[in-house]
């Protein structure tokens, strides 16, 4: 009976841990999915620079003319919300970079404040959540470089 008790208790503990790990892994997979979705949405936006242009730079807000790429200036750092999944929070950060103009080919790249002059953008999505019962947040960070193909 003693051995049986030990085995059954071990089984119960293992099952409990398995359920916990299962839940944690599902949460992490959901976080990756959210981050992927947000990143894809940003980099597939044809009006990328206009939509996400930094409001602190040049006054780029213009009329809504059809040929106007530069409109709707927002900040370069934004909070993300995921509908019906309030347990997850996210941040979107976009940083413009510019290659040097004097060398062929470029030999340096640096952050720039001028979104219109930027050659590429670093897009970073961070998704955070608190695993059940934990006070320590888990975080998934996805980042990519984006080359805007619309001039």
């Amino acid at each position, binding site marked *: *009976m003693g*051995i*049986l008790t030990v*085995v*059954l208790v*071990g*089984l119960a503990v*293992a*099952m409990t*841990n*398995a359920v916990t*790990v*299962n839940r944690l*892994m599902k949460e*992490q*997979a959901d976080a*990756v999915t959210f*981050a*992927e979705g947000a*990143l894809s949405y940003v980099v597939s936006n044809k009006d990328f620079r206009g939509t996400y242009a930094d409001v602190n730079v*040049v006054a*780029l807000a*213009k009329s809504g003319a059809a*040929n*106007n*790429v*530069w409109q709707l200036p927002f900040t370069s750092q934004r909070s993300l919300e995921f509908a019906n999944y309030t347990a997850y929070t996210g941040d979107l950060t976009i*940083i413009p*970079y510019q*290659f040097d*103009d004097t060398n*062929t*080919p*470029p*030999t*340096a*790249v640096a*952050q720039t404040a001028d979104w*219109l002059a930027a*050659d*590429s953008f*670093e897009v970073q999505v961070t998704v955070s959540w608190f695993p059940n019962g934990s006070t320590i947040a888990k975080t*998934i*960070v*996805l*980042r*990519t*470089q*984006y*080359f805007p193909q619309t*001039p």
Partner: protein
Amino acid sequence: MRVTATRRGTALIQVLVLVMIASGVLLVVLNSTGVLYTQTKSTTESSIVRNESRGGVHAAAAFLSKDLRKGTAFTPIDNPALWAGDGSPANPYYVVLVGRGPNLLLDTTGTYYTPGAGGAVADFATGGAGSARALLTTPPAVDFGLGGDPEFAVRVEYKVISGTDFYYEVTSLARASNQNHASRGPMVLSMQAALVPEAPQPWEFGMAGLNQVQVTGNGTLGMIDTDGKINTAVATNGSISKN
């Protein structure tokens, strides 16, 4: 007494069977949990590395477009000392860019390729010793000028279509950065793309600084305001030539 012993023996066998079944269930649960754990970490890792690799293609496009916009395309004709290969189908012209975060530079260390030479290059297609995958996985003690080890490497091949028309064939390899979620070493993923120069606005790609641009057919030349600045625009339903 005999009946009691028989019952005890039967109960013992039942307990043993129960223990074996419980142990089997325990092993299955532990195994499936381990598999799930590995799968989720790998999913996370592949997502991170795939986006890094994709970013390598975009960063290379930005790098190569910088000179195109100035009208001085980065090619083996204009910059022979920086390209390797001989332009033959078997050994096309190529360069290798290395990157870390937003940084992307030509590999001038001779690690991934040898500029101006036709020979040695790290294999971007397969793994093995000396390959680009191996170099990314176990970076050599070389200062690439990136502020750390490369996180991605991009091989750029120069391909001539005909005459002066060309495109770049790009292969980007990326490894996980400091967010490594992989169970068995950093994952390395590849992404390929063809970068074809196009000229939605002719002045941006190759016409700046020229003596003359001729519009054949009906066309217009005017000033437009598309980005908060006054720009010159040419439009035609015919053709545009330059010299």
